[in-house]
């Protein structure tokens, strides 16, 4: 699903990591671990094609979804409106019906807040709107940047449920998180070794 060969990335002329090679096959989860500022987000963005790679090759087979730190939610629009817009953008998604939107919001315990402008939602609730995007996503490769940020225990379990379902559907997963091991089956990739 994802193949990275000899990748090096730099930011502001500082090399963050180099000679990084790994693969993520279908049905496999890889957790990126490293200290703040060591290039987790840069790596995810480079794989997504949003940043240029300094050296090396990246091959992505199939569609991907990238959920960054930035919640992408417009403060004026409601959770439902934001979700409808953002889920249309994922290339592999088919047309999302209103019923699917409501299902996704219900899964993330946002039914009550679905028509609330996102400016009035808490950070955790906004993160849960992003989980609803994962619920609706048909992308094969998920690139998740700190998916547990701001989430309470219940919502963290929702992330794990979503990830487990995705893996069982032969999806692949690359998660950047400085939480301890998020899933027992996840392979660990320590970026600092490549610094």
């Amino acid at each position: 699903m994802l193949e990275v060969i000899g990748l090096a990335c730099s930011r502001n002329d500082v090399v963050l990591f180099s000679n990084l090679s790994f693969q993520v096959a279908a049905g496999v989860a890889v957790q990126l671990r490293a200290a703040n500022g060591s290039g987790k987000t840069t790596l995810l963005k480079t794989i997504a094609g949003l940043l240029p790679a300094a050296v090396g090759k990246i091959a992505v087979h199939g569609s991907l979804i990238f959920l960054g730190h930035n919640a992408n939610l417009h403060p004026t629009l409601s959770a439902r409106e934001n979700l409808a817009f953002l889920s249309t953008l994922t290339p592999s998604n088919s047309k999302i019906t209103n019923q699917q939107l409501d299902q996704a919001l219900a899964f993330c315990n946002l039914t009550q807040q679905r028509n609330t402008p996102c400016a009035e939602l808490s950070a955790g609730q906004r993160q849960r709107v992003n989980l609803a995007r994962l619920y609706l996503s048909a992308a094969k490769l998920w690139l998740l940047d700190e998916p547990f940020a701001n989430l309470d225990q219940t919502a963290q379990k929702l992330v794990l449920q979503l990830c487990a379902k995705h893996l069982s559907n032969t999806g692949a997963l690359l998660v950047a998180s400085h939480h301890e091991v998020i899933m027992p089956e996840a392979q660990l990739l320590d970026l600092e070794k490549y610094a």
Partner: protein
Amino acid sequence: MREVNSIPMMVLKRDLCIYMRHKGEVLTVPLFFVIIVSLFPVAFGPLPSELNWLIPGIIWIAALLASLLAQEHSIRTDYHLGIFEQLLLSDYPLSFILFIKTFANWLVTGLPLVIITPLLALSFAIPSQTIIVLTGSLLLGTPLLSLIATLGVALTLTLPRGGLLLSVLILPLYMPVLVLGTAASILATQGLNSSGPLALLAALTLAAILLVPLALSTLLKVSVT
């Protein structure tokens, strides 16, 4: 598969919906326009009818200044929200999306000026032929103003106080629009054929519709990556 064509519609609906929820900001533009135009009679007293040819120029300058106000642009907000990263990942041509966003911006900031102009012009007692040409020139010219302004916004996206630089950057680019727009109206006041400047204005606007979105998409790709 998803209906790819639905993306521009979604973008248009989303932008218009956001503008409609900021009615105060949207209404500022036409109000500012009306106020600027009304300041001139207050300052000069009633203009003698042989100075009527000044009025289209006054209205055009007011339209330029009002459109400067209109640049609290959806592009700036969306850039900071990371929407363009998601749009880039959507595989949809970014230039077309940016055209749609500029069009939405024009619908709420440019079109109202075009609609108000005949009413404003009537209050100055200028000939109806001039009013028609003036309104027509604004209809052809304001989309160009919106496109130039969006270009300015895209250039100043990453600057912390981009707004100040923005006016200095785009006002000189507004100059041809002002020249052609007023020239057409003045010709009409003198009873002459004004189709020359209007045709040039239309040509400039068409060229900008084709080229500016391409420049915008390149600028945004550079800013995002």
